[in-house]
């Protein structure tokens, strides 16, 4: 009878071996617990270089002297209206804008509606802002991606895509700049530098 009593210790050791083997396999095949490639210690650049959903204002404020964001109100109403109508927006966290205080945001209006699929019955005109004609102004994010994911109004999608655009020949690092938020497609938004926006829309009223 007593011979059997130490089976508990044997079970403990065998289970431990099994767990370690399983964990080691999992560790080898899964995501690494940490990496050893970091050389960026400045907080604003460490965050700004990532693919974080809240990053847009930080990326822009890392790039320019000061940044003003217009039409970044995020509301949950069903989109209706004509060219330039205000629809739902995407998430621009006020706290992030204010913490890295090279940027400011105006939340009084939602992004301008310039969805590709939309045809304005009043002006009989197609949209002047599309993903295609924005492409050459696209800013490649520090993370190496062309677009970033952002939170957006949940009536359409929980996650939307955002692109950052300015004319590199006319707008340079270290300038004071203003960006306009535009809805280009149902789940695609753009932050477009105001001069470029005016150029594309040929001076159409922003709001």
């Amino acid at each position: 009878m007593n011979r059997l009593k130490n089976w508990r210790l044997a079970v403990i050791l065998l289970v431990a071996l099994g767990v370690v083997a399983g964990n080691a396999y999992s560790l080898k095949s899964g995501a690494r617990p940490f990496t050893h490639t970091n050389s960026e210690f400045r907080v604003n650049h460490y965050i700004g270089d990532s693919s974080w959903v809240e990053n847009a204002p930080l990326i822009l404020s890392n790039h320019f002297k000061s940044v003003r964001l217009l039409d970044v109100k995020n509301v949950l109403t069903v989109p209706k209206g004509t060219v330039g109508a205000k629809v739902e927006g995407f998430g621009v966290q006020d706290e992030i804008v204010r913490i890295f205080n090279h940027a400011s945001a105006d939340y009084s209006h939602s992004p301008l509606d310039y969805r590709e699929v939309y045809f304005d019955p009043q002006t009989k005109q197609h949209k002047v802002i599309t993903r295609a004609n924005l492409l050459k102004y696209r800013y490649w994010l520090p993370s190496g991606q062309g677009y970033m994911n952002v939170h957006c109004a949940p009536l359409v999608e929980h996650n939307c895509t955002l692109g950052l655009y300015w004319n590199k020949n006319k707008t340079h690092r270290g300038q004071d700049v203003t960006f306009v938020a535009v809805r280009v497609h149902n789940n695609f938004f753009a932050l477009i530098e105001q001069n470029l926006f005016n150029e594309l829309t040929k001076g159409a009223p922003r709001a």
Partner: protein
Amino acid sequence: MLNEILVLTLIAAGSVAGAWLLGARSTLFAIPTGLLLASVVRILVFSTCNMFGVREAASGIFYVLLAATLIVAALKARAGLYVPIAIAVGAGLVGIFATRVLGIIGTRHGDSYWILAVSHLMQNNGDMMILDGHTPLKRGFAYPLFLALGPQDQSLTGITPYIFFAMMCALIWVIWQLVKNQPRSRVYIVGAVLAAITFSATMPLRAIFYINGHTLFATGLIITVGVSVIALRDKVLNNAHFVALLAGVYVATSTRAEGVAIMAIAILPIISLKFLSRLQVALVITSLTASFAIWQATYNSYLIPNGMPWILFLLILVGAGLLPVIKWFDWLRHRIFFLGLVGLVLVYVAAEIKWHADFRRGHKALIYNLLFNFNTKSLGSGGWGLFFAGLAVFLIIAVAGRWTPEFRYLLMISVMLVVGSFIAKMLDGGQFGHPDLGRIGWSDSLNRMWIQTFGIFVITVAVGLIQNEKIWQRIGAKSKGE
């Protein structure tokens, strides 16, 4: 890097010196206790400076206090001071070497970015009113305050692995205090087994460098629970232990959004003790309520009703918390440990019945995260590998033996922490609609909350295994009772 070396060396040395002056003489106890005390001082100094609009003075005052503590301790120094200081400073330097020289960085995560953003604001003496919103408020107070002590526009990178080191010191110290009368061989075997299953899993390793307050919370929780169980067993609570407990409660409450709820559970064992004076009970509860109120006041939290002065909020919270100290409530307070356990389980069972449809996804996530993901046919998606499965097997073996009082208390606290974590997650999810028990993936907040509590589970299993005589009888030998 020189700046970081100086700051972390001062924190490590000054904090251990402070703990030593308050009676924490063993290295394993002095390091975590010192860190918790330093965190309390940092919070109080920063909050006070913020209140008077002189936030820029906060870091300087903190350094002066640490240096003064170090000088006073050095003047009184006897044997036992310099070894813990040397070990703490060494651990801090290793942390800096790992992050600054080797470039090791924790897994990137949105919460880490939020925390770094909050620390950036603190470092640059920004307006704390900015943090009133829901998201930054959830990122805690104590941990970003440490990060904010880094070089200009950088964070104090070495503090994160140092906190993990302090957490491990606390864990080993508690286990040792509870089993030191047992044969060493048992302690070493169980220690090796538990260390092996812990440090072969992804999440405990991830916790070393992951930028979040989980390990600081865990340090406070382990010290609080450990000191409570030692007091429950010994029917005595010495001053050094009591101060460490107060600091543990204070820091853990200010570290994470769920801190106040989890620590309210964690203090139930200690406040139920009959031999504790009313003043001691009042101090324990106030370290919880004042910590929460000061954090909310400094962040100008939306949780403080509109127009209510923060001092009134603090007085109401602290005053309400002191009700159990009244003699009339003694009958309740002396049974609160057991009643708390029953109450928590009942609340959870009721929630399961009411929201069983909403919880279905959460149950699946729990199994997939902690045990096995049947979709991808891989071990736990939460990064815990087989850690919890192994711990469960060990626990079954442990409970099959004689239950010592300390093991029984640890079991009860472990159950309360598991259920409390579920309820905290439900409350968090409930803010966004229906209560929830999480989603599949390591970054789910409930999955990360286990970083805070796994140390207590390890202590429970360690004590249960080491004290279970049935495990340690030699083959063919008779047990003591036969």
